[in-house]
């Protein structure tokens, strides 16, 4: 009977050893432990042949049967099934021997030789099964190692993949950032290019204007000089005519001469008007020589607001505008590039006209357009305000007003450069341009210029 218990012990020991790295559940381990203790006790009792032998022998069979039952019915031990079958013949033979011995020792003596032979075959069977089982176990082990390796590789690949993904995401965001920067640079370049083209156009237009003005100036001088001379001569003729005796013919001649004289005066008057226009064209287009000279700002404002008004009246769609000048008395002279700064006044006043034209078109005769231009001495600064009671500037476009090429005018009416140039000129005078506005009520451009240091 010791053999059966040894088998029990061996099975339990082997099962315990066969635990993988994750181990068996706690209750299984407990079964193994108690089983092994029970087997050891039974072995000890068997050796001691302690009575009642028959009971202990029965317990031995119960133990080994329990172990086999455990192996067959526990999912964790499923792969050990062949192990359960291995000792079965031995146990069977032992059980048979035991039963026969217990029931009828006489029969046992007759059958002993057969039973020994059966025991021997059972042993061979067990060994064969055992070897077979070992082989299976090894295969399972190899399979496990292979699958573990594959799993490891898979994990590695996953890890590398996620690392690569992070890297790709980083690179992608870098590239996107660079792309945005490039796009911005490109936009800047495009707007600068457009600005340059516009400036080039304006410059060549300016040169052309200067050339035309110059060419017109000489003939105009002749018109003016000769008309002036002729008026002088007519005075002289009048003096001479006084010496001739009166007659109807003389009276007719005198009347005609009076008309001629009045015509010449008109020619002279309009000639000098044209001369004034040519002169301001020349002044305007010759381009700043860059010199800042002390300038009477009030005079400049008077001249150029007037010029802007007459320019507007001479162009298509003239409007009726009341221009009010609220110019500070005793304004000190300001260091200005008069040619450049005259553009500021022209542009702001022209802008006001354009804005108010829209309002006039919208409201009709209920609205009377008014531009107010103020100058104020603020101590260390000079304030210039150009205010119109036009449609006002909505908040959302106020910031864009000074940007080059921003225009609210339709089609080809505006270049979008006027206020941008104005702003540049004011900046070049170290001044500041602010815009205050209430939609539907007014727009006020405020220029602050630093006073010249004494």
């Amino acid at each position: 009977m010791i053999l059966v218990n040894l088998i029990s012990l061996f099975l339990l020991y082997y099962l315990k050893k066969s635990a993988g790295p994750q181990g068996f559940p706690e209750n299984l381990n407990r079964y193994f432990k108690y089983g092994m203790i029970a087997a050891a006790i039974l072995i000890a009792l068997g050796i001691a042949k302690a009575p009642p032998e028959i009971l202990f022998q029965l317990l031995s069979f119960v133990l080994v049967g329990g172990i086999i039952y455990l192996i067959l019915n526990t999912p964790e031990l499923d792969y050990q099934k062949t192990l359960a079958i291995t000792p079965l013949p031995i146990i069977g033979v032992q059980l048979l021997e035991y039963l026969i011995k217990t029931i009828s020792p006489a029969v046992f003596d007759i059958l002993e030789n057969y039973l020994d032979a059966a025991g021997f075959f059972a042993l061979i069977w067990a060994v064969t099964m055992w070897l077979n089982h070992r082989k299976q176990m090894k295969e399972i082990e190899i399979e496990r190692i292979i699958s573990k390796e594959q799993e490891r590789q898979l994990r590695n690949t996953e890890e590398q993949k996620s690392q690569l993904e992070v890297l790709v995401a980083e690179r992608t965001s870098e590239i996107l950032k660079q792309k945005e920067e490039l796009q911005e640079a490109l936009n800047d370049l495009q707007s600068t290019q457009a600005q340059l083209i516009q400036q080039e156009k304006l410059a060549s237009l300016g040169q052309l204007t200067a050339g035309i003005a110059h060419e017109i100036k000489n003939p105009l001088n002749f018109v003016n000089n000769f008309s002036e001379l002729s008026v002088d001569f007519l005075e002289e003729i009048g003096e001479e005519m006084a010496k001739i005796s009166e007659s109807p013919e003389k009276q007719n001649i005198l009347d005609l001469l009076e008309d001629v004289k009045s015509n010449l005066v008109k020619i002279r008057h309009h000639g000098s008007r044209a001369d004034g226009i040519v002169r301001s064209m020349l002044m305007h287009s010759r381009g700043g020589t860059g010199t800042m000279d002390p300038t009477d700002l009030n005079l400049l404002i008077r001249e150029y607001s007037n010029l802007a008004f007459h320019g507007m009246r001479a162009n298509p769609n003239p409007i009726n505008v009341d221009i009010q000048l609220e110019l500070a008395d005793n304004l000190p002279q300001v260091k200005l590039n008069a040619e450049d700064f005259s553009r500021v006044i022209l542009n702001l006043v022209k802008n006001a006209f354009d804005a108010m034209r829209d309002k006039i078109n919208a409201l009709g005769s209920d609205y009377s357009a008014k531009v107010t231009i103020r100058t104020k001495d603020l101590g260390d600064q000079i304030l210039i305000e150009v205010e119109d009671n036009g449609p006002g500037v909505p908040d959302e476009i106020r910031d864009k007003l000074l940007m080059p090429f921003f225009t609210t005018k339709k089609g080809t009416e505006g270049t979008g450069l006027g206020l941008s140039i104005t702003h540049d000129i004011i900046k070049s005078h170290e001044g500041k341009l602010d815009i205050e506005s209430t939609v539907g009520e007014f727009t006020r451009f405020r220029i602050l210029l630093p006073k010249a240091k004494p």
Partner: protein
Amino acid sequence: MKILVVDDERDVEDLFRQKFRKEIRNEGLELLFAYSGKEALEILENNNPPLVASVFSDINMPGMSGLEMLGIIKNRFPQLQVSMISAYGDSENYQKAMSYGAKGFFTKPVDFESLRKEIGEILRS
């Protein structure tokens, strides 16, 4: 008393003759006209010492410019008074004219009153 006026615009002659009609008639002023710098120099060359008391010249002329002519005249006849008349009232031309030895500098359109004063002084001298 002869005065030479140099200008490529021919109507300048009529203008001057009419403007100085009284001086021509009553004060013995005689106006000579040249329509280019070259022509003016020829008139001056033909008479040495020069017949004219003074020269008034435009600056911007085709061919020889007034300033070029001024340089040549001042080189040949240092005593001759030359005044310049220019449509370009810029300081560069003024500086050049003065450094070449011009007596006066008038800008177009010509202020005939100041020109008359200048010519009056020449006539009386």
